[in-house]
């Protein structure tokens, strides 16, 4: 007996460990994998594109300093002799500087100063990695070197399926939670209705007892035929009321059972949830970035549907201060959670649409059977 008990305990422990490993691998491990992959991408892109950006910035700075020197020398020497020569020299130098600027802009120069500001900081690279694997793709920050573009392609090919797996998994879990909460709310609602109806039944029962007492008091004084008639009438009324209340309770229970059995969340609730989430994001970005309500809503919508035009971009998140780091983390969490929520809403709406379509098909089939 001791041996059998020990074996069953060992088996249960093994099963428990197996379940724990599966849970970690499927949910928390997957989240950690996605975050780790984004951080890895941030490190790689910063290492690849950062030096290129610094090189371009240095080039532009040198060209600007050279242009200033040439113009100053021309002003210092030629100004006393010939203004036409001065104009020609200055215009030539300005044209050459403009050419250098245009070429640098094509290679990725964005006007930031060398050594002071940079686009490819760790936070900027992290946000870039996130926009790649979520297929948002703002485009404000884009790889410019050959190595950067090649790495972006490889990173996207591996990262996008990983992100889809993550969103599918988290979306499924969130859909289950949402459905569970909805079922609980339905049960609570019907419990309240039942309690109300039971209270009503108790009131009716108390009224019936009062009536019967009055009838009994009256019976002592009057004759037998009148007493029996009154008592019978009271009994009939009481039975009818009790039966009606019980039927009402039964109907309520049947309705609750039917709704719980269907277990489909209405589309209006799904849409309301999504609009609420967009509203929260709109408020956050309105406070942070100083955008109008429409601009913030527009940005949130364009981001969560992964269109990602890039005309609106959370620029204050991409710098090296602590406040910017916090904003970046919150923005990332908002985007990831928002896309998972969108997947959940799409999942639930799809179920609802499928059920309605099946119902219509069944209706048509039954109609055809009637015709046959």
């Amino acid at each position, binding site marked *: 007996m001791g041996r059998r008990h020990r074996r069953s305990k060992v088996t249960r422990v093994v099963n428990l460990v197996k379940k724990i490993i599966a849970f970690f691998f499927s949910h928390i491990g997957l989240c950690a994998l996605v975050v780790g992959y984004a951080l890895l991408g941030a490190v790689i892109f910063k290492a690849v594109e950062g030096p290129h950006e610094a090189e371009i910035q240095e080039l532009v700075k040198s060209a600007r300093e050279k242009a200033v020197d040439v113009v100053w020398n021309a002003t210092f020497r030629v100004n006393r002799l010939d203004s036409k020569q001065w104009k020609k020299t200055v215009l030539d130098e300005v044209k050459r500087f403009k050419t250098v600027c245009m070429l640098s802009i094509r290679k990725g120069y964005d006007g930031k100063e060398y050594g002071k500001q940079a686009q490819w900081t760790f936070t900027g690279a992290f946000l870039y990695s996130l926009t790649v694997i979520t*297929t948002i793709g703002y*485009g404000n920050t884009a790889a410019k070197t050959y190595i950067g573009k090649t790495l972006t392609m490889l990173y996207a090919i591996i990262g996008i*399926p990983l992100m889809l797996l993550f969103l599918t998994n988290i979306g499924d879990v969130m859909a289950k939670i949402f459905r569970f909460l909805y079922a609980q709310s339905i049960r609570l609602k019907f419990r309240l209705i039942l309690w109300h109806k039971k209270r009503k039944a108790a009131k009716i029962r108390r009224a019936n007892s009062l009536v019967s007492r009055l009838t009994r008091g009256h019976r002592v004084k009057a004759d037998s035929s009148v007493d029996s008639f009154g008592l019978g009438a009271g009994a009939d009324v009481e039975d009818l009321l009790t039966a009606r209340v019980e039927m009402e309770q039964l109907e309520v229970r049947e309705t609750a059972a039917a709704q719980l059995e269907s277990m489909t969340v209405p589309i209006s609730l799904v849409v309301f949830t999504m609009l609420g989430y967009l509203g929260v994001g709109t408020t956050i970005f309105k406070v942070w970035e100083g955008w109008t309500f429409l601009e913030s809503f527009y940005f949130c919508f364009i981001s969560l*549907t992964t269109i990602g035009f890039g005309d609106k971009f959370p620029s204050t998140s991409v710098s090296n201060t602590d406040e910017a780091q916090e904003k970046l983390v919150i923005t990332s969490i908002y985007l990831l959670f928002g896309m998972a929520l*969108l997947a959940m809403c799409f999942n639930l709406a799809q179920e609802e649409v*499928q059920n309605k379509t099946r119902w219509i*098909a069944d209706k048509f089939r039954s109609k055809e059977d009637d*015709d046959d």
Partner: protein
Amino acid sequence: MHPRGKFLAGHLSAFCITPTTTALISRNHSDWAHLQLLRRTPSSDAGNMNQIHFGTASARRRNAMILENNSGDEDAPKQGFLANLRLALFHLVLIFATVAYIIAGAYLFTKIEHQAELDRYQSYHTIYRNFINNLYQSSNRSVADVENLIDTFTSINFRAFKEGLKPTDFLVPQETSRWSMISAIFFTTTVLTSIGYGNLIPISTGGKIFCVGYAIFGIPLTLVTIADLAKFVADMLIMDPTEDPKTGRQLLVLVFLLGYMTISACVYTILEPMWSFLDSFYFCLVSLLTVGFGDLHPVGTVEYMLCSIVFIFIGLILTTLAVDVSGSVGIAKMHSIGRGFDAMKMLNALRVRKSEFVAKGAVSLSAAARVAGRRLDGQQPHQPRWFAYVPKDALTIPYIDESANVSSRTTTTTHTSI
């Protein structure tokens, strides 16, 4: 009654196909679509759910195939053309609806944004001309006044640039707008496929609001259409009997997609003077994965833009097909990995239990019993019965000891023979 029955049969087949089409949303290239496909996870509970879903999906497909076969059989002796038309009608209606939606949206965007752009141009052009006149009128001004005027001009330029106008736009009369019909069609295509290059964007308030509503209703329509076409192509592939192995089909689809992207990259390299082959391939990959940075985007004539739009749609269909096939194979591999995981756990459990038995015969006996038990029970969670039944009060019955030993010996010999 017969014509009405025929009509209802057609409607019934149409409505039966619709759930399958709705389910096909999960096979699209977009996030929402991919989510459904890759929902399956290697955990055991999810594995069971996966099996149930997979059975349901295959059953639904079988039903759809049976319905199509029945309709084909019914209509074949009457009119083949009508049958083909009915089969293709749903696909054609879906394609036509999507194309009409794109063109209507492009027309409305052109109306809204073109008018807004003209208004903005007139406003800033007036400010610009007033500034020029003001600057030229008074020739003798102080340095501070000149600096203020230049600062004002600079701020005006910045605001104009933010609203989509460039200083060079004021040099020539503004006759043509950036929102032509073809550029608007390209814009609506990138919105509905959620690529979103961002080179052309709505700037006015009405344009932004309309864009949000347009995307809400248009993106699901586009997803359904692309998923439907991908399923059509998948059915054509399945009809080939020579491509039964899944791995071969997967490889074929992936090679075809890679070839398509390579050929498109070569074409873009030829047509775009500033792009190298890597740039072209980068553009194709970024577009077909719907990342859509917008740092590289096609600009050219009407025919060129239309060809780009066709390239995007065909590429998205191929990408959806590739994800569908690869997803199926990936899910099968995950299942096998899950089973392997269980096998490893069982091996570990066996090693743990090995220490409990001293004799090798006992070990082999228990292993054989366990294997037999598993085969019989089908991996059910019941406790495996490794030995003959021994009552709890066996020790208190002294006259049964020898017979018990004899029965255990016979059991041992039986197992060894097995």
